Each structure stands twice: as structure tokens, then as C-alpha cells.
């Protein structure tokens, strides 16, 4: 059985500019211990899907579909039950770790709090656990750093703190939303290495959200490619990267390999004004009449009228 | 600016605008709409309750309260507008100088502003009005002598943030004169915060005018003014409460209208509340 099974997840926002369809019939599964990555350009709805799983979307969001976690549908859980799952079963780390730490609480305090929420232990024990966690994620002199505040931490160190906090209760799923995007290249490699080790050490499943194909290839077993709120291709990492089916995935890979001009032509459509038919057709070199009229169905992991997986 | 009247706050702003337009008409047309002479005594008609003949009743010396309130609108709005114009003028000049020239000029002006702000405005106004003697002129001097500081700060703040964006430097680089830079590049950027501040400030000024007059340190009797009317009505609170209810109501409505409009404008012009909070 899959650990996480998302079925036809729709998320939309009512805004002044109109309804934004940020996630359109998104479905994918993550097995226990598997690392899956969700890739796509920024603004394609990746982070919204992640926040949807955590049920941490802003108040104007409308969400439908099913998100099964260990067989229970998260969307039908009571608020209180969902709160208990956060941090304990599903944890999340974010982009720009510095802003994700509370500036007026000491770093150790924030990690100890994460321990305490789900374990109901004494202050002394949670404090000790927090120091251990800080050592685990490679923060030097954890005892001293415990009582320091977020402004005293660099971006990389702050992300280590976030990881320590996320792993406090050994969750079975870790969602990492662009965990290295705002960091320096050298630091990025360290954080990726750390995440990789910890995930395999604890046998945690990973949902990695990134637009960096290199990072994705290093860490993940399977991949889901999103474009303008919908999934356009999914499959095993090695298959997809070796033999991409969708023209968009092909373009992404070409852009990342550096052989061609660095970006995919054109830009992601506004989510309030999506084109008819295949959403990628205005940017697609292969587009034909059918692409402009009819939304293609997912076949063998590719959602395209023209390209078929061989 | 008022094209997108969709949410509640915008509607309140429009309501404020309508009330203010109405008050402006009342102020301008006072001689034509006031049923009686606001200062004419009529000792046979003292302390009358509201009736058809005197819609809001009469005061302790038989003057028609409605007429006095109508003329009071004229006095209050006129003084407040004059005060705001003078404050904006000095505030913009000083604030622009501080923000534009920076360094020593800025430092000196802003430290002076700090010291001036150390005095709660109303106290300084009270002291000045008290010392210079009570007259409309002195009331205006008292209110403006402290009020301009806040405009100076807001203007300086916006100029500093414009400077950060660097297009003053580029304007200077292509040879624009100081005056041209100020009028073409700076003025448009400071105008919206100044408008919002001025609108909110009008309310505060109206309260200050009435407050000082209430204490006997502002406008002098027998001029029809809301604060004076309150003060004069106070002794008759038990027998004739309408003497103090209507002028107070008028002050409140006027101030509320300015605050509705100011709050709405602040939202429409998308300014953070921290920049301008009424202290």
C-alpha cells in the first residue's frame, strides 16, 4: 500500500482577478521509503499541492479530491486529528529557512517545542532531545547554539534547524519545498547530502519540490512533472530523465543540460486565464489542431496527443 | 481613485466623502440655509426644546442651535483647512529639504522634529494659544506650529525610499535641475501619503479646535463654534441636554467622516498602517 495516495486533487483560489486553478486533477502516489520529486517552473502549483497535503492553505482556498495517508483521507479528517498528524506523521521544510524561524524565540526552544508537541515529555528531556537533533543535523556546538536566536544563523544553518525540527518526531513523510533554492551552491550540496542521509537513515518518505533537475536526479526515485497546475508526466526518475515523453519535459531537460539556450520558450500562462486544450500548446513546437481543442489524457505516464511513450 | 468600490472599506470611504461634501455645502451656504441669525439673542425664547420652530431647540440666551451648528460647520472646516494647508506647506518644504539634502541638514531637522514631537501637540497648542491670547489667528498658529512635523517626517520617509530606488541619481546624471527633479520625480511620490495623512489629520484638528475652544483657549464667544457650544451647554446638562448633545454629535460625525475617507484612501493607495497611525 502507498504511504501517500493523492487522487484527483483540485485546489483553487477565489481572488479579485478571478478563480485561480492552482492544482487540477493532480494524482500521484508515494510508497514507504520512496523519494518522489515534483518538478516544474515556479508558479505551476507545486507548493500549493504540498500545502494542500498539510492542509495549511490560506482561507480563500477551495480544495477537493482525496489525499490518502496510510489509508486515511486527510481531507476528511477533523481539524484536531489533522493537527496531530502535522509534525508527527508529515513534516515540512520550506524555502528561505531564515524567515521560517520565529525571530523572538531561541532556536533551541523552537526545536524543543516540536519535540514536546507530540511526545508530551518534560522540559528537560525535550531540551536534551533538541540538542541531540541539532548535533544530528550537523550544527556545531549545539549546546551553545541552543539558546541563540535565528538572526545569528546563516541560511544553511537555519535550514539545518528546520530539518532538525521536522525530524523531531520521526515523521513517515517529509515534504521539502525548494529546500536549497535560496542557499549558496556549496551549502546546497551539503544540505542535499544531509537530507539524503537522514531520509535513508530514518526510512522516511520524501516529497521533494524543486525546479532544479540536478537536485531531483540526485535524490529521488520517481518524478512528477507539473505544468500550469496539472501533471503532464510522471514515472520512474531514470525512465523519465533518459527518455522524456512530454515536449515540456524534453524542453526542461534540454534547458538543464545547457546544450540549448537556457530556457523553455515563452512563459507559464496565468492561472486565471488558462488556454483551452493542452495547456502547453502555446509554447509547444509540435502543437497541432487537436492540442488547441482537447485536453489530452494521461497515457502511460504522459499527457500528450502527439508524443507517445515507446 | 474611487473606481473600484467593491469592498466594505471602500464603501465607508464613499460614505465619508458624501458626508464631507454635504458638510462643505452647509459651510458654504450657511447664510442661506440657517433659519436664524446665529448670534442674535432672544431672551424670551431661552432653553427651548427641539420643536418645529427651532428644530434643535434654543440655548440659554435664546439663540437657535441649528443655526449655530450650521455656522459652526463653517468656522471649524475653515480653520481646519487653513491649518492643514499651512502644515502641509511647511511639512513638505522641510521634509523635502531633509530627505533630499540628507546628512547634516537631515540630522538637524530630524532632531528638532524629535524634540518638537516630544511635546504632545495639544499641550503645546494649549500653551501657545494661552500665551498669545485667544483668537482664531492664534489658534491657527498654535495648531500649525506643531502639526507640520508629522508631514515633514512622512515626506522625508518617502523621499528616502525614492532615493534608495536610485532614479533621482539617474535623473541627475542626465542633467535634470534640482527643481525639475523635485517636481517631476519626487512630488508624485509624496502626494499620496500626504493626502492620506492630511485627511486623517483633519479629524484630529477639528477635535483640537473644539477642545481648545471648549477650554476657553480657542475661538471666542459669541462666535458660533461647536466646542464653545458644548462649554456653554454644560451647566444646563440636566434641564436642557440638547444644548450639548447636538454640537458634540456634529463634531463626531465630521471627524468620523474624515476618518472613513482617510482609512479608505490609505487602503486604496495601499499604504501600511504603521507608516501613518493617528497618535
Amino acid at each position, binding site marked *: 500500500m502507498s504511504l501517500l495516495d493523492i487522487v484527483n486533487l483540485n485546489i483553487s483560489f477565489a481572488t479579485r482577478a478571478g478563480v485561480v486553478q492552482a492544482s487540477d486533477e493532480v494524482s500521484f502516489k508515494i510508497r514507504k521509503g520512496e523519494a518522489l520529486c515534483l518538478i516544474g517552473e515556479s508558479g505551476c502549483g507545486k507548493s500549493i499541492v504540498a500545502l494542500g497535503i498539510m492542509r495549511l492553505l490560506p482561507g480563500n482556498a477551495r480544495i477537493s479530491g482525496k489525499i490518502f495517508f496510510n489509508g486515511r483521507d486527510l481531507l476528511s479528517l477533523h481539524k484536531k486529528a489533522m493537527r496531530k498528524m502535522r509534525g508527527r506523521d508529515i513534516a515540512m521544510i520550506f524555502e528561505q529557512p531564515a524567515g521560517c524561524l*520565529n525571530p523572538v524565540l531561541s532556536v533551541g526552544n523552537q526545536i524543543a517545542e516540536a519535540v514536546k508537541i507530540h511526545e508530551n515529555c518534560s522540559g528537560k528531556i525535550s531540551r536534551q532531545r533538541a540538542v541531540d537533533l541539532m548535533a544530528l543535523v550537523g550544527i556545531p556546538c549545539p549546546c551553545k547554539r541552543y539558546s541563540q536566536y535565528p538572526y545569528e544563523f546563516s541560511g544553511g544553518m537555519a535550514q539545518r534547524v528546520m530539518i532538525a525540527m521536522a525530524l523531531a518526531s520521526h515523521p513517515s513523510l517529509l515534504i521539502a519545498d525548494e529546500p536549497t533554492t535560496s542557499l549558496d551552491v556549496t551549502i546546497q550540496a551539503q544540505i542535499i547530502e544531509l537530507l539524503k542521509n537522514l531520509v535513508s537513515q530514518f526510512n522516511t518518505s520524501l516529497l521533494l519540490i524543486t525546479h532544479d533537475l540536478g537536485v531531483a536526479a540526485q535524490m529521488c526515485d520517481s518524478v512528477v512533472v507539473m505544468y500550469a497546475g496539472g501533471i503532464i508526466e510522471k514515472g520512474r526518475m531514470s525512465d523519465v530523465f533518459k527518455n522524456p515523453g512530454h515536449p515540456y519535459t524534453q524542453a526542461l531537460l534540454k534547458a538543464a543540460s545547457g546544450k540549448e539556450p537556457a530556457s523553455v520558450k515563452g512563459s507559464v500562462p496565468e492561472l486565471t486565464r488558462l488556454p483551452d486544450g493542452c495547456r502547453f500548446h502555446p509554447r509547444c513546437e509540435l502543437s497541432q489542431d487537436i492540442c488547441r481543442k482537447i485536453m489530452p489524457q494521461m497515457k502511460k505516464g504522459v499527457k500528450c496527443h502527439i508524443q507517445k511513450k515507446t | 481613485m474611487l473606481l473600484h468600490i467593491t469592498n466594505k472599506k471602500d464603501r465607508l470611504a464613499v460614505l465619508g466623502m458624501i458626508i464631507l461634501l454635504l458638510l462643505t455645502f452647509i459651510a458654504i451656504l450657511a447664510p442661506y440655509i440657517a433659519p436664524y441669525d446665529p448670534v442674535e439673542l432672544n431672551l424670551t425664547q431661552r432653553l427651548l426644546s427641539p420643536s418645529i420652530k427651532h428644530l434643535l431647540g434654543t440655548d440659554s440666551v435664546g439663540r437657535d442651535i441649528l443655526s449655530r451648528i450650521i455656522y459652526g460647520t463653517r468656522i471649524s472646516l475653515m480653520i481646519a483647512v487653513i491649518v492643514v494647508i499651512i502644515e502641509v506647506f511647511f511639512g513638505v518644504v522641510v521634509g523635502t529639504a531633509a530627505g533630499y539634502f540628507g546628512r547634516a541638514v537631515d540630522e538637524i531637522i530630524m532632531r528638532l522634529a524629535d*524634540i518638537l514631537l516630544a511635546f504632545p501637540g495639544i499641550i503645546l497648542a494649549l500653551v501657545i494659544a494661552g500665551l498669545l491670547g485667544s483668537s482664531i489667528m492664534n489658534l491657527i498658529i498654535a495648531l500649525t506650529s506643531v502639526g507640520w512635523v508629522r508631514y515633514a517626517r512622512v515626506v522625508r520617509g518617502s523621499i528616502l525610499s525614492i532615493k534608495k530606488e536610485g532614479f533621482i541619481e539617474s535623473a541627475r546624471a542626465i542633467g535634470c535641475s534640482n527643481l525639475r527633479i523635485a517636481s517631476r520625480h519626487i512630488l508624485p511620490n509624496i502626494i499620496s501619503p500626504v493626502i492620506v495623512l492630511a485627511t486623517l489629520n483633519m479629524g484630529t484638528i477639528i*477635535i483640537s479646535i473644539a477642545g481648545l475652544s471648549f477650554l476657553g483657549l480657542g475661538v471666542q464667544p459669541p462666535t458660533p463654534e461647536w466646542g464653545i457650544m458644548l462649554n456653554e451647554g454644560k451647566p444646563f446638562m440636566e434641564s436642557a441636554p440638547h444644548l450639548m448633545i447636538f454640537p458634540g454629535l456634529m*463634531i*463626531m460625525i465630521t471627524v468620523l467622516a474624515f476618518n472613513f475617507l482617510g482609512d479608505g484612501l490609505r487602503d486604496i493607495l495601499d499604504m501600511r*498602517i504603521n507608516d501613518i497611525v493617528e497618535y
Partner: protein
Amino acid sequence: MVKFIAGRLALAVLIMLGSAILSFSILTLAPGNAAEAILSAERADDPQLAEVESFMERHGLNNSRLIRLSQWLHMLSKGNFGISLRTGEPVAEEFRARFPATFELAASSMALAIIIALPFGVISAVKQNSILDNVIRFVALWGVSMPNFWLGLLLILCFGVILGWFPTYGSGSIVHLILPTITLGTSMTAILMRLQRASMLEVLNENYIRTARAKGLHEVLVIGKHAFKNTLIPVVTIIGMQFAHLLSGVVIVEQVFAWPGIGHFLVDSINARDYPVIQGFVLIIAFFFVLSNLIVDILYAFLDPRIRYGRTQ
């Protein structure tokens, strides 16, 4: 942090010195002759020239401005505010006798404002755009727009005259304190409520709030611990700044309720052109402004670790 506080202290001293000079100059630049005003206030007819001159001689009003300024600063440095021209008592004594009543009123108004404004501001932000939020916002806007002298009169009319629940003037007991406290505290409550709501809304958008929720923290703690502590920084600033302003709002409220505090005394002194008292009052207000700002700075250091440790490392 020591350096930080020392810097603030130096600024405070500078502001006090500036205030002393400013308060002196306002009064000397003002037209009208104090001696004449005092003497004519004491008697029904205009005073004789000789009398005025001997009065001015006695109170040193004939010396040049610079000499009087230096005398004034010298006196102040010894805590001497001069002698009230009207009562003949030392100004400092006059204030000392009246200050407790004023402080009582200001402090209770502040307490009222904090107790009401902070929770309602938080609720208003958390339930943004709900009916409750709209009601709270409207009440706050109304509170800002309400002239306190009129509010005072209405309260007297309603609860004093008509219902007879509270005395309408004077001081001395809790019952006396209630109406003036509401009168003085209303606008303060409204201002604080608006500020608390605004800063809460801002903080709730911060990423660390999302982190706190992602941990599985109970919403009560997310708001009460993580968010509230961050909103305190701007709120405490305004509370501090408002305290001196509250002392000045006291002037009108004391007049309405015949409250025997320094505000009441000031209005009488202004009418009598009692220069030393007016100068003293201006200085006292400036002193409280500086003092409350200092307290705010120290509180800041407790609330914001960036300031607490930032300067020592």
C-alpha cells in the same frame, strides 16, 4: 546592550535640554506682560506702572533673555522649577501635590486600554472580515473619532445625571475614577486596538507562523505564543509613546470632571499667565515622554533578541 541604553540616555538628556530651552523661549517670545496680568488678576482695576515695575524687579523679569535662560537652566539642574506667580508656592511643590491624582487617572486609563485593546485587536485579526471583526473595527474607528470632552459630558449625563450610578465630579474613590477613566481611555483603546489588529495581521502572514502550524502546534499557541510575541514590539512602542500623550489628554478630562490634577491646574495657570507653572508643565510632559521612551527601549531589548544581544557582540 549597555552601549545601546547609554546611547538612548544621552539622547534623552539632549531632548530634555532642548525642551528646557524651547519651553523657556516660547514663554519669553510671547506677548503680554506677566506682571501686569498677575496684578490685574489679583485686583479689579489696572495696576500702576510702579507696582508692575517693582513686581518685575522682584521676580527678575527685567534681566536680559540670555541671563534669564541661564538662570532658568541653573535652577532646573537643582530640580527647582521656580515659584508660582499666582500662588507663591514652589512650582515643584504644586505639581507634587497634584500629580498623584493625574497619574492615577492616566494609569487606570492605560490599564483599561491595554486590557481591552490587546485581546480584541488579536481576535479582530484572527477572525479577519468576520462580523465580529467588522464590529470591532467600527467601534475602534468610532473611538478614535470621539472627542473626549463630549464623551465625558455624555457619560456624566447618562450615568451621573439620569441613572445616578456614579458621581459626576471630584476624586477620591474608585467610583469617582470610573467615568474619567472611560473618557480618557477610549481613544487610547481605539488606537491600540487598531494597531494590535494591524500588526497581528502582518505577523500572521509571516513564514514562521506557517512553520509553527506545520509542527502541529495548537492554534491557540500559534497565536498566543508565536504571533503575539512578535506583535508586541510595535504595540509596546505605541503604548510608551501614548503615555505622555495620555498625560496631556488629562487636561481636558480633568476640566470636564473637575479632577484635582495637574491638567486642571495648568488651565488655571494659563488663564493667569503663570509663566513658571506653564514652563514646568511643558517640562514635565517632555520628561514623561523621554522616560516612557526609555522604558520602551529597555522593553524592546527584552522583546527583540536582535537588540538584546546585537550590540554586545
